[in-house]
């Protein structure tokens, strides 16, 4: 069975380590915040200028002056700090943020990523994505394995305009977990009940499969 979005977030949460500063992109990555293990201290960064971002406010307690990078109203946790956009991207470019999780439209077996522009469609802009992917030491891409037409999003070469080159380290899809290695996508874990053959059939990029690929434990 392919993973649900919640299960993908749950799996990514297992990559968190105590004391990490983490930037979560819009969409499925945002859900990772719901699965931080009990007792683990994680500080979430929002690139519009927050460290220590908390959950959405209770009804009636929204503050127009306190939003996240997705323009949603949020709250602050004790120990949080606020800063300007230049300082925020100093944290990102300066590699002070330990983990970045973001969505993508395409990823290649060498770690290239495309997630900001589809030629012929209205372009909204890259926001902070190019700064994030160019600088993070540890980038996990979280996306569906195939697009709506059923075509693999794990490719040899991106067909869409790039956001960054050779930067993605790990990919979590609804079918499995993959490391980007010099030999290509290395299948680390497969979604429960899914065979290696099924994953192979849906992966266009180079795929490396060890002798015994474990089923994911959620």
């Amino acid at each position: 069975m392919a993973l649900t979005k919640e299960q993908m977030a749950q799996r990514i949460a297992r990559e968190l380590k105590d004391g990490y500063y983490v930037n979560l992109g819009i969409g499925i990555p945002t859900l990772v915040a719901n699965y931080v293990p009990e007792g683990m201290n994680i500080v979430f960064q929002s690139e519009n200028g927050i460290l220590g971002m908390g959950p959405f406010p209770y009804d009636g307690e929204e503050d127009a002056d306190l939003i996240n990078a997705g323009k949603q109203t949020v709250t602050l946790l004790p120990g949080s700090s606020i800063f300007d956009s230049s300082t925020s991207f100093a944290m990102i470019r300066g590699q002070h943020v330990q983990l970045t999780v973001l969505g993508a439209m395409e990823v290649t077996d060498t770690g290239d990523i495309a997630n900001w522009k589809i030629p012929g469609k209205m372009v909204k802009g890259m926001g902070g994505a190019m700064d994030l992917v160019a600088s993070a030491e540890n980038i996990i891409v979280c996306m569906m394995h195939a697009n709506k037409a059923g075509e693999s999003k794990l490719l040899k070469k991106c067909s869409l305009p790039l956001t960054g080159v050779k930067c993605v380290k790990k990919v979590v899809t609804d079918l499995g977990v993959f490391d980007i290695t010099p030999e290509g996508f290395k299948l680390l874990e497969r979604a429960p009940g899914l065979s290696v053959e099924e994953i192979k059939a849906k992966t266009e990029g180079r795929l490396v499969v060890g002798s015994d690929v474990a089923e994911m434990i959620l």
Partner: protein
Amino acid sequence: MNKIVESADAALDGLQDGMTLMVGGFGLCGIPEKSIAALVRRGVKGLTCISNNAGVDDFGLGLLLQTRQIKKMISSYVGENAEFERQMLSGELQVDLIPQGTLAERCRAGGAGIPAFFTPAGYGTEVAEGKETREFNGKMYVLEDWLRADFALVKAWKGDRFGNLVYKRTARNFNPMMAMAGKVTVAEVEELVEPGELDPDEIHTPGIFVNRIFQGKGYEKRIEQRTTRKRN
């Protein structure tokens, strides 16, 4: 020292057609609402606006798009804005999309007297096309130049007649860098206080960067994505 002007309209004295403006804010958070309204009243045209976003159809910089006052936008993300999309696709509006961190740093560099800098953002992408690239310690970087503006329009929470500013929460965003990079920087504040009331240790933008300051009244502070959770 008294930089107080009586109104938003007075603050824009000298702002002419074809000028380049920096406009603070992230989404609709921390935008200079009153200065934007004054720009509409002033009717200046052919503006180049440097701002992270372009507002929504009926608020923020969207108001200046409705009135066709903007010729070019320099932004990182232009979001959901039907009029923006229409003008961009028809070619009426020029749009320069640049990475958000690069935008912030180009404004900061403009204010800090640094004509260019190298950043890794955009290397190997269309953003780097036509730009100088260079290797430092085995990694490739792109040369980006500074941004400066004829007028920088910023919004703060509190300010005094020296131009010292304090921002509130994430309404800070691009405002401090833009305040540094304007030939004329106009700050609008929710509260104008007496010199000495702001703790010098807690001032975000020192008054040296601000030329004109005024107090705005009745801020709308529209929320783009109201998200809440239920009480248990």
